[in-house]
């Protein structure tokens, strides 16, 4: 004890060696042992001459004389410094492990198959909703807590690991003592003896309930998205500009007719997209990414098996912190069905316009030709009657004159009604006379001076063509009257044999070519009519400089009224 054994030791010199903090306790323990006739057992620290502190474990027996007076204290002291250090170290490691288990929501366990004893770490107890101080469950008790739906599976996993000596892994729901249901993920390894018998299983269990829930939620929202894409027939993709990687949604893969994003590359797209000329779209696409601006286009897409669909591509570049495109998001919408419906709608509306036109035309003709002619005949009959009566009956003559006046009025009314519906003059005499007639009336009604420029010998064209041009001029003049404020208008027709050009030009206020104003009143109708006849239509306008409406239609010849020839 850092003293020279030959020198001997006194009680006082011993006490001197004891750590000052432990000295009083040591004395007290010693006195108590002596007084109570008990073994003195305790630890104390010694401070060596070189300053080292050692931990000693003392165990001593007090001896007494016959009179019961204490004689001496006999005992041994052991240096337990190292043992204590190992103990501390172990305790520290244990607490670290417990802390780690708690942080990871992980509990360790061991099952001794030979003794059927189950050992759990503190946190394993907590995972089960138990106090770490309680008794570990028996193995039957453990299985009793597994959710009934998972129990057989868990049992089988244990069985397999034990009999085959293979690692154990399962995920199962447990009904905790407090009734909560948690999902634990368990892994274990068997310990096999020299006879190949599994004698022990040990492992870890982790509570994955929250992770599992999040995953479920993610999976279900992914499934929802996929479902939504499928229902809406929309596919989406994301392109990472830096590593040039593109991820396609499952519905987009389906729409492109490929199996995985890996199969995808830009060449594939341009190979299958059908455009009369893909170069402009190519360069617009590149510019959209370069300038980080959205871009859209519609194209037909040929599926690998040959079917052709109509897709609307929407490209949305996303800027990084430096303002340059970092990612590109895209949506592809299958509008085949929509396009088909739109086409049939257009077809239907064309048919509707044609039917309406032909009905009005027929009604107008009917009125003009039948009722009008009968009234004309009536007037002639009345004139003949008047002549026949001569000067014989003054009163009767007055009645006849009045009747002729009524007939005259009726004729005038019928003429106005039929002309408003569809000018029969158009069919009988063509665009020149019909437009001259209409425009003269327009000038009288509106006070707008109208100049009509129709070359002589302008000729006749198909009924649809003439009727379309007439109604376009009519519509354009209505707009001039209502909106332009122009004092004059020029209506110009010309033909170069292959096409007919109709123009209505005013000197009014015009309008700015904003998209929402461009298709103003009646303009969609005019555009529609022209497109039905494969013509082109444009409205040129600048604020303050008037408006020019121009329609160019193919010059379809008039169907011959009759091929009956007068035989010689």
């Amino acid at each position, binding site marked *: 004890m850092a003293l020279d054994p030959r020198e001997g030791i006194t009680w006082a010199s011993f006490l001197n060696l004891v750590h000052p903090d432990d000295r009083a306790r040591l004395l007290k323990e010693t006195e108590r042992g002596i007084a109570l006739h008990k073994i003195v057992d305790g630890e104390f620290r010694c401070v060596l001459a070189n300053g080292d502190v050692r931990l000693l474990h003392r165990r001593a027996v007090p001896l007494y004389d016959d009179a019961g007076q204490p004689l001496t204290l006999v005992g041994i002291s052991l240096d337990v410094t190292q043992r204590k250090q190992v103990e501390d170290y172990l305790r520290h490691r244990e607490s670290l492990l417990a802390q780690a288990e708690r942080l990871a929501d992980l509990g360790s366990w061991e099952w001794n198959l030979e003794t059927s004893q189950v050992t759990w770490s503190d946190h394993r107890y907590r995972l089960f909703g138990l106090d770490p101080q309680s008794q570990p469950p028996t193995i039957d008790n453990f299985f009793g807590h597994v959710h009934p739906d998972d129990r057989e599976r868990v049992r089988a996993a244990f069985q397999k690991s034990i009999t085959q000596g293979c690692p154990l892994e399962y995920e199962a729901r447990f009904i905790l003592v407090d009734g909560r249901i948690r999902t634990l993920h368990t892994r274990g390894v068997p310990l096999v003896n020299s006879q190949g018998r599994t004698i022990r299983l040990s492992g870890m269990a982790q509570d994955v309930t929250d992770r599992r829930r999040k995953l479920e939620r993610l999976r279900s929202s992914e499934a929802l998205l996929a479902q939504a894409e499928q229902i809406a027939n929309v596919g989406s993709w994301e392109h990472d500009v830096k590593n040039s990687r593109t991820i396609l949604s499952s519905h987009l893969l389906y729409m492109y007719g490929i199996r995985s994003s890996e199969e995808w590359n830009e060449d594939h797209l341009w190979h299958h997209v059908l455009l009369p000329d893909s170069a402009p779209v190519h360069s617009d696409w590149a510019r959209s990414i370069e300038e980080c601006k959205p871009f859209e286009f519609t194209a037909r897409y040929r599926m690998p098996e040959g079917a052709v669909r109509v897709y609307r591509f929407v490209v949305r570049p996303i800027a990084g912190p430096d303002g340059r495109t970092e990612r590109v998001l895209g949506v592809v919408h299958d509008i085949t069905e929509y396009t088909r419906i739109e086409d049939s709608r257009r077809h239907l509306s064309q048919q509707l316009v044609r039917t309406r036109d032909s009905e009005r035309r027929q009604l107008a003709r009917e009125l003009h030709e039948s009722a009008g*002619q*009968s009234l*004309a005949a009536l007037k002639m009959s009345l*004139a003949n009657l008047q002549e026949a009566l001569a000067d014989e009956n003054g009163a009767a003559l007055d009645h006849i004159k009045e009747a002729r006046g009524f007939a005259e009025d009726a004729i005038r009314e019928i003429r106005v009604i039929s002309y408003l519906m569809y000018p029969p*003059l158009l069919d009988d005499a063509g665009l020149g006379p019909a437009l001259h007639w209409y425009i003269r009336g327009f000038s009288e009604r509106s006070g707008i001076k109208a100049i009509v420029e129709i070359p002589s010998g302008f000729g006749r064209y198909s009924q649809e063509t003439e009727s379309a041009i007439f109604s376009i001029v009519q519509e354009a003049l209505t707009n001039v009257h209502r909106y332009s404020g122009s004092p004059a208008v020029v209506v110009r027709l010309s033909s170069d044999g292959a096409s007919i050009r109709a123009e209505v030009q005013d000197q009014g206020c015009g309008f700015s070519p904003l998209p929402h104003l461009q298709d103003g009143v009646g303009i969609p109708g005019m555009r529609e009519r022209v497109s039905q006849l494969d013509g082109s239509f444009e409205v040129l306008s600048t604020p303050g400089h008037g408006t020019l409406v121009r329609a160019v239609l193919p010059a379809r010849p008039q169907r011959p*009224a009759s091929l009956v020839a*007068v035989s010689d």
Partner: protein
Amino acid sequence: MSSKAYRVLIADDHAVVRRGIRHLLETQPGIEVPWEASNGVEALQCIKKEKPDLLVLDLTMPEMNGLEVVRSVRDLSPETDILVLSMHFSEELAREVLTCGALAYVLKSDADTDLLVAVDHVRHHQPYFTSQLAMSMSQNFLHGSSPAEECLIPGAPLTPREVEVVQLLADGRSNKEVANELGVSTRTVESHRNHIMRKMNFSSFSDLVRFAVRNHLVEA
């Protein structure tokens, strides 16, 4: 006036109109209506065969466009004059009809008042426009493209036949006397007279006489 009857072909697809026209024409001395046609082809066949003096033609008929009929008549029978009856009140159409070779354009609804006057003009190979178009038309027409016609009296859009009527009336003849002189019915003369009054905006018969004297149509 030749003693030979003036033979007229009426071509109209409406039977009632044909009957009305026939009645109107048959009241006139020297006019016969031996034929009727209900479409353009029939009309042309008849014209080719019979060469009538006058074709009263409805412009809108099935089988053949009225303008085509007019053009064909000029080839088939140049001596046949054409009076077009139309439902359309259109200056351009009237002009086109006349350009194609018809001599008169009468609005069907005015046939009761205008037809006889028109026939009287055509019978004397003078052009005629339905009264409602007469003012602008005759001015345009006489001053315009047709060199064959000249305006007899400057500023007065009267046809030569109408000038004749003015002369006779201003000379103190009665309607009946004028009718006899011109070989037409008194009714035709009355129609002429009404047209002239309306065209020249005369408010009384004295206006007509003053006009005739001023323009040296009669001796004062």
